[in-house]
């Protein structure tokens, strides 16, 4: 029997700060339409927003893929760009490789990945330097 599932792909532009947040907003609205608990939706939205911001700041763009089935909510952020050279360091709170002009805009405080880790129930990061990064975030429905 085929299980109910859906997926949605949203493109994200690198270095476009005025559109940043739109993908997370669409993910949020989609989940609310599915009737998912609002506090869980908020966690997904915050994590997706952080991942989206990382793409805008650090990559040449990519896409956010939302997949929902009866088991879990999965959000993937797939980008092309310079990748993460030291993943362990990148996970540290306050560590940032964002350029000064981005930090002056109030972004790139080094809280992105740590925040994602806090919000997501499952986190997988695959990154190849000078190729790109894929962040996979999984969220469980509360029992």
């Amino acid at each position: 029997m085929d299980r109910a599932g859906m997926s949605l792909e949203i493109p994200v532009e690198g270095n476009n700060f005025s559109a940043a947040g739109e993908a997370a907003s669409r993910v949020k609205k989609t989940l609310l339409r599915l009737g998912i608990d609002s506090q869980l939706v908020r966690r997904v939205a915050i994590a997706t927003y952080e991942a989206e911001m990382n793409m805008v700041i650090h990559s040449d763009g990519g896409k956010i893929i939302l997949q929902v089935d009866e088991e879990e909510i999965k959000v993937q952020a797939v980008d092309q760009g310079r990748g993460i050279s030291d993943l362990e360091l990148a996970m540290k709170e306050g560590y940032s490789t964002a350029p000064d002009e981005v930090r002056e805009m109030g972004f790139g405080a080094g809280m992105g990945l740590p925040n994602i880790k806090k919000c997501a129930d499952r986190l997988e990061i695959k990154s190849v330097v000078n190729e790109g990064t894929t962040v996979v975030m999984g969220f469980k429905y509360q029992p």
Partner: protein
Amino acid sequence: MDTRYHSVVLDEEKCKGCTNCIKRCPTEAIRVRGGKAFILTERCIDCGECIRICENHAKKALADEFAVLDQYEYRVALPAPSLYAQFKAVKPGSIIAALYHLGFDEVYEVAYAAELTTFAIRSYLKQYLKNNPRDKAPLISASCPAVTRLLQVRFPSLILNLIPIDPPYLTAAKCFLREKLPLLNLPREKVGIFFISPCPAKITEIKTAHEKVVDGAFSFNTIFRQLNHCLRQKLQAVNQQGSGVGIGWARAGGENLAVQVENAMAVDGIHNVVALLEEIEMGKLNEIDYVEAMACPEGCVGGALTIENPFVARVTLRKLADYYGDRELPPAVCKKGEALQKQDPHFFTHQRPLPAKPILQLDSDLSTAIKKMSQLEKILNKLPGIDCGACGSPTCRSLAEDIVQEKSQLTDCIIILREQLEELAQKLLSLAQIRPPAMGSLVEKEGKNDP
């Protein structure tokens, strides 16, 4: 009381079935059906945007008629501070005198209650900020009922961020009941307490309240003419109680100015409020402690039921607030606030968290909702994406949603209808071009001539 009651209603005769209001509604609560606008009650937050945008004045607010006062032996008016800004160069004391002249036995100023509310918010925030980490989403003011309803329907995850302090008009009524009612020797039901409201949202809140504290509401429009008439009679002004701190609440930023929290911000206009709440929900504004959010542009002075131009009213109000002192909360107010809190620790607060009323969800069952969502995206891909509104739904996305919910059909889209007509016309044309053999099969001949 019916919880689906709305003060915003449609005047069918005046509605021309245009699409101005459906495009403007922040919760996509209006459809056009059968040439008339139609309000989806579970979605409406009574913000009054449709009243403001409708050129035919087909949207109106149901408020009480003046005659309702005859049912009561003792009548109390609770004038909103924004009422003071409807008249130029008139003292609040004169307006209060005019209200007495109109037949009210008591006028309890909401401007004064706003100062007590200021005290309550200050003390709540002080406690809250001491006990909570600073990197949390901000608390949100509960003084605008259109915003609290917006949270219920569109931002349910932020309901717990609403500060649990009653809005000033409610505090005014509660103060009256506590201080003055016992002296009257009248049963509660003989006393009518009426708010004079700048907006439909407060009227709805009053009419749908779980616990009836305020008995009804008049719109500015209902009393404007009589009030104006009284004001011309140059009655002796009475001393008003509210200082500039409370009067200032009626304009955007006035509550923050009164409350004086360091990391506070103010936003006005319902669409700006929606945009800001999106950011808060995404965790982008955690450095802010308190948000004053007003549905109407310029705050209550821009209420959908006000008479004066909001920008003019704002200037008038600013002058009044300045004249009556808007820098310091009067010490007597703080003292009274403390006394009230001592008598009843919950005097200013409401205990029940508001229920979520999610309007977006496609189905209560997850797997059905997922199926509907996939269907919705498929339909959306077929639709032209020009959001023209001719189908009666505000956007192509909302039409797709209406189709999935079996409230509309694909051919309601005039572009799709044209495409289907074009296909049909092509078919008709090709059928018309087929000649019977007796007349010579034209189509076939043409085909043979093709290289």
